[in-house]
């Protein structure tokens, strides 16, 4: 490419998320390979790019070398929202280059491309099925010369070129070494679920987001979800003065020394039924115009919350009706974890959310494919802190009753500042709930176990730890009575 780096002009793809990965889009006049096996979305990628460019007033030439006719291809994309019939023939022209290639080889194809780009003053050229060109090349050298000529031509007229092709059997192929960038698309199954991934293998002239990024193909075409870990390093944090954010549960605030530290992440851990969601709802019910709240959840729908007949739901419904709180319910489906994060952060930024409840971590865990969740969650929480959000995240553990509990994340302390543990204790025929604060970063707190219950007014925590001690003593003596063998083995008995 000619020109110094300062004069590089960007060509936005218009594909959501992709321009973020490319730090602004393609570089004008560049030659790029979009590679992937059949079915990975290359043709949709190419067409979506073309229609976006045509809408922006550019002249686009789409040349196909593949077996599928132009008519069949357009039929297949006609229902995608970016498609506009009126753009075709005006902003976008579709041509077949196969006959030129068949009759004249690479030379014939090059003449076609040169002539049509020039006569139509095309600033965008997409060649679909570029692998067919390689089939007509007599040698790797001939292919190299062709690509070089194409690159020179494109650069000279500031035409940005995309070559849609299959991955080369020879690595690196002739063209790979010469083009300005290579984007790889893959599509696979992970545990019965689809997994589509995009990876920038090469991108001259600019930095880009490294690593693999997920993407989806839906009615609006391709949407790319940049990997959260790759994004987070650009976000700075201003720690500022530490303040306390009330939880909506007065006794808990006392135990915490006034409330949760502002802009921190609190993990509420416990088995199913211990009241984690109720904790979250009470926290959210404290939302106000000055502290807008958001529940990003996978379990409770807004309609279901409104039908609950208790004081917490009533307070929360008031906050919802006033617009101080919002519930974003995510239905169970094949979600992408970076897509969930994008959606949540968009909602946070849109309303300047200050109180966030994530109910719960399990919803994100289900959306993970093959990569570990800890770096993702660490990046996500980092961004929430940067947005000055105080977050409560619920996390279910599989053990309902018992002395051991599996931590919901490895390295939990690296990711969250505050940990609340909820658990059941079974004594005789009764089930009790206990709460303890395990950690509050850089703060004093009351670490004693407390008994609590869920009432129509919400979480009711015992005034002190006496009732918890009493319960645990009863539990201990019940356990002794239930296990005569163990009693016999104790020293002194």
């Amino acid at each position, binding site marked *: 490419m000619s020109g110094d780096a300062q004069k590089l002009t960007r060509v936005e793809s218009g594909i959501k998320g992709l321009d973020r990965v490319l730090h602004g889009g393609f570089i004008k006049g560049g030659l790029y390979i979009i590679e992937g096996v059949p079915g990975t979305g290359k043709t949709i990628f190419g067409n979506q790019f073309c229609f976006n460019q045509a809408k922006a007033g550019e002249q686009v030439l789409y040349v196909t070398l593949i*077996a599928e*006719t*132009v*008519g*069949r*291809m*357009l*039929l297949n994309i006609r229902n995608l929202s970016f498609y506009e*019939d*009126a753009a*075709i*023939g*005006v902003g976008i*022209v*579709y*041509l*077949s280059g*196969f*006959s*030129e290639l*068949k009759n004249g080889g690479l030379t014939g194809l090059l003449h*076609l491309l040169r*002539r*049509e780009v020039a*006569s139509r003053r095309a600033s965008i050229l997409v060649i679909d099925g570029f692998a067919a060109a390689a089939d007509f090349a007599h040698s790797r050298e001939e292919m190299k010369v062709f690509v070089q000529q194409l690159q020179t031509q494109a650069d000279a007229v500031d035409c940005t070129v995309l070559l849609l092709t299959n991955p080369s059997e020879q690595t690196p192929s002739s063209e790979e070494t010469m083009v300005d960038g290579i984007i790889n698309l893959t599509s696979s199954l992970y545990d019965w679920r689809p997994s589509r991934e995009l990876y920038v293998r090469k991108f001259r002239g600019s930095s880009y987001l490294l690593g693999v990024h997920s993407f989806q193909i839906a009615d609006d075409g391709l949407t790319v979800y940049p990997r959260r870990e790759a994004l987070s390093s650009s976000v700075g944090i201003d720690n500022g003065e530490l303040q306390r954010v009330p939880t909506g549960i007065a006794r808990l605030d006392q135990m915490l020394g006034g409330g949760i530290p502002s802009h921190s992440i609190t993990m509420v851990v416990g088995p199913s039924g211990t009241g984690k969601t109720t904790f979250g709802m009470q926290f959210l019910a404290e939302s106000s115009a000055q502290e807008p709240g958001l529940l990003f959840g996978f379990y409770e729908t807004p309609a279901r919350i409104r039908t609950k007949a208790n004081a917490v739901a009533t307070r929360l419904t008031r906050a919802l009706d006033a617009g101080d709180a919002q519930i974003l319910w995510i239905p169970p489906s094949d979600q992408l974890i970076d897509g969930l994060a994008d959606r949540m952060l968009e909602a946070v930024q849109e309303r300047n959310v200050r109180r966030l409840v994530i109910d719960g971590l399990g919803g994100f865990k289900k959306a993970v494919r093959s990569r570990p969740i800890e770096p993702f969650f660490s990046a996500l929480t980092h961004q929430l802190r940067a947005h000055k959000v105080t977050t409560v995240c619920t996390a279910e553990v599989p053990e309902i009753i018992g002395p051991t509990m599996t931590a919901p994340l490895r390295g939990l302390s690296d990711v969250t500042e505050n940990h609340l543990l909820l658990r059941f204790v079974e004594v005789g025929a009764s089930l009790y709930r206990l709460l303890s604060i395990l950690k509050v970063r850089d703060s004093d707190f009351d670490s004693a176990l407390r008994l609590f219950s869920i009432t129509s007014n919400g979480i009711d925590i015992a005034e002190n730890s006496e009732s918890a001690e009493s319960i645990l003593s009863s539990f201990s003596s019940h356990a002794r009575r239930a296990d005569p063998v163990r009693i016999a083995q104790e020293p002194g008995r």
Partner: protein
Amino acid sequence: MADGRAKTVLIVDDELGIVEVLEFILGDAGFTVISALNGEEALARLKQDTPDVVILDLMMPIMGGAEVLKAMRRDPKYSAIPVILTSALSEDTVREQCDGAYTLFMRKPFKSQQVLDAIARFLPSNSKSTH
């Protein structure tokens, strides 16, 4: 056939696959088929062999279907030849781009019977059809 000669269809399309399929369908139906891969070639072929019907694609390199239509309508030798215009676009869009100068529109992708039915509207009913 009324005058004893096989009717001639000129196919104008840059997609070689479509040209070959139409050659097969129409040849099998007893028509003489000539073809061109772009508008410039099409006008040259018109001068050599005046066809009875033209099947004309809209978007082509060098010269597109709209320009071919304009040239044909301007020339009394060709202005009366029926033109079946083909495109992947909707007819509303095509009509706007061509000022409605074509005789019939056939949206791509089309089926072989559609082609034969379209041709039958302009050519004598004793033209052979295999469908």
